[in-house]
């Protein structure tokens, strides 16, 4: 072999090795990058979820207006402190029984002509069921993270029914068509006839079509 050919071969080998090494480095690098991006993405959506839930936990509040023992009717107030308009989601439980949404009604002041609350059926709308099924189909925000509602209920010593119903309560500003910030209070009527204490209102937030319970109120 001439000296020239030997030198050419030497150069090719170095080039091939380098290209191979770069290839390996690229594949490894892209792999690590993809892994990091996916991990960060997951972490990010998880953080977004937790932050949204934590924000809404402080943003939504429920207050008891009154309980009428003669008619077993509980009147509640729902409000978002930041004035945003949105639906409220609740799972209501009374004396160990998870209530059907037909027992929960929202007061629409637009349809009330005489001031007597819910004396006509059109003044108080029955809330719609957005989830009906086992406890594991709904999640809950727990200090340790997001867990399924069954584990949450077990941890908090809440009753473990077989079926729960999550109900959508439209904000009063949706009912009255009010635009802009909503400072009005949404009044909700819960029929507790035939049921016993304690009453718990589990307030949920919808995120990517999944319900997360962010707070529990015990008005009675």
């Amino acid at each position, binding site marked *: 072999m001439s000296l020239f050919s030997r030198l050419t071969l030497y150069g090719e080998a170095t080039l091939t090795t380098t290209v191979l090494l770069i290839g390996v480095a690229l594949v490894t690098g892209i792999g690590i990058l993809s892994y*990091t991006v996916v991990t960060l993405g997951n972490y990010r959506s998880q953080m977004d979820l937790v932050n949204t839930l934590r924000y809404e936990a*402080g943003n939504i509040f429920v207050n008891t*207006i009154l309980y009428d023992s003669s008619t077993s009717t509980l009147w509640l107030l729902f409000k978002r402190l930041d004035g945003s308009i949105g639906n409220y989601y609740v799972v209501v439980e009374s004396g160990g029984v998870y209530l059907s949404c037909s027992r929960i009604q929202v007061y629409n002041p637009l349809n009330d002509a005489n*001031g007597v609350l819910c004396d006509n059926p059109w003044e108080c709308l029955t809330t719609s069921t957005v989830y009906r099924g086992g406890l594991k189909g709904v999640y809950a925000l727990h200090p340790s993270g997001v867990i399924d509602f069954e584990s949450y209920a077990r941890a908090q010593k809440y009753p473990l029914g077989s079926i729960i119903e999550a109900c959508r309560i439209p904000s009063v500003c949706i009912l009255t068509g009010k635009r802009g910030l909503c400072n*009005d*209070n949404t009044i909700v009527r819960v029929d507790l006839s035939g049921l016993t204490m304690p009453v718990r209102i589990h307030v949920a937030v919808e995120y990517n079509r999944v319900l997360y319970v962010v707070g529990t109120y015990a008005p009675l």
Partner: protein
Amino acid sequence: MPRSRYKAQSNVILPAIFLAVFTIAIAPLAIFMIQVGQTTPSEKPLKPVLQGSRFIRGEMQGVYDENSTGLLLINNAGEDVDVDRLIIQLLCSGNTQTIGVSSVGRIHSGGSVSLNVSQYISTTCKDPTIKTIQVVSQTGVVMPVRVVSLKELLSGSTGPGGGTNTSMPIASPITIDLSSSTFSGVLYRGGSIVTVDPDRGMTGGLQPGHGYRWVFKLDKVFNNVAITIWNQPYRNIWIGYDPRNPSRYNILIATDYIVITTPYYSTGYYTRVKIIGFTPSTPYIVKLGGIEVYKPSENIANPLFSFQTGQLIYLNGIAERVEIYVRIPETQAGGYTTGYEPYMLYMNTKPSQGLKGLLFTTIDRLYGFLETVNEYYRVTDFIRYGLLNDYSIYPLVFIYTGYEIRNVNHTGVILTLQYQFIDNDAGDYVTVDLPIMEVGLVELVEKEGEKYYYVYSYRTYNYVELTRYEDIYPPSTGIQSDILFFPLPDPSTGNRTFYVYLLIRDPYWYRWDSPTLDDIDIALYIEQFTLIPLRRLKG
């Protein structure tokens, strides 16, 4: 070709290829990764959205007249309330009905609204009586209303006028102005209240000090003056809105000594400086310990006992009137008693018009404990420093002559009041529970051309009751309110005239056998006082 030349070429080409690949492929990915890392949210602490929610400390009160279905709602919550809806639960011959009234709007602190409930009661509700009323505020606060039913009051009352008349429409409520000229300041002596000698005014009510008797004397008055107090130590300060003009402030400062820069004034005695109608030249009202105070506290206890942390006061502005009271020995003062003026300040904690709150305070320096003298904390010095312990020889009585209550025209009177209280006793313990405030009716009796006022009926507010809602670690007090009903005697007992009265006193000096006990000084603030006369229907 030399061998070294190929090597040199490959040394250049290879890094160039590497750089090209890196620039095209890796660098954008790396930048993307950095960006993703930077925009990924971290777990945020709970945002202070809860600041939007409000606490309301006082209460709402209501008077309901079944006959006229008139409801009077009085806001004693301690702040303006924007009512979103009143939720009224009615009892209709066995059934209940819930009604919502949305037309109420804003009720100012201390103000009231009256509405007729009948328009909301449906025809299906027979014999309606109010079971409960809840006020739902715009902010989402639900406040139960303490409702007084006239029917129940009168049927259940054992007073002389009770149950004799069933028709009592409510007259408009009258907000009693404690600073108006219709009030005569009088002192209570023995069993009757006597009008004070107008020349002496309200002097002679309090006796300050024990051991040595040192009294407050008005040493200096400045009118329409520019005032600067430049970083002087102070013990206690009360700041309120001037009731006559809420853009100005009324201030009371209690201090051990003071040097006022403009107009120049200096004293080494214990001092009280009253600044009336103060307009600050600074964006803030005063600076206390370097902190700028922009509005009066709603809580009269808020800036108290600050000298325990060694704070200084700075203020600069124009005042309508400055009164300086100094604590001097009785031998120099020419008497051993002090009037009520150094201890009183008309002020509001809210800028709302129409209310004239009254502050009465005998607190000068410090709080104390069971084993210490309250105005000073070393027991060995109690004689010297106990000289700041004040007590009332005669209580101060306000008789409101602006509205004459006659048993031939009225069946009764409802009084509502809102007040705050704090004392300087860190133990909150007394050996004898004594009355501090009294509210009720006096009857006017004229004998041989002289007017005498005899106490007809009253309710006392004793120390133990008042101190339940206050503390001094840190100084804080709750807004308290009350609603009182006084039935009047039947007209068959004669044509009789009554007036509303309010009595205040600091009943505590110290216990002779144990001077560190019951050595309490107090601060009482009456924010609102309303009279609701109940008219008697003729025939």
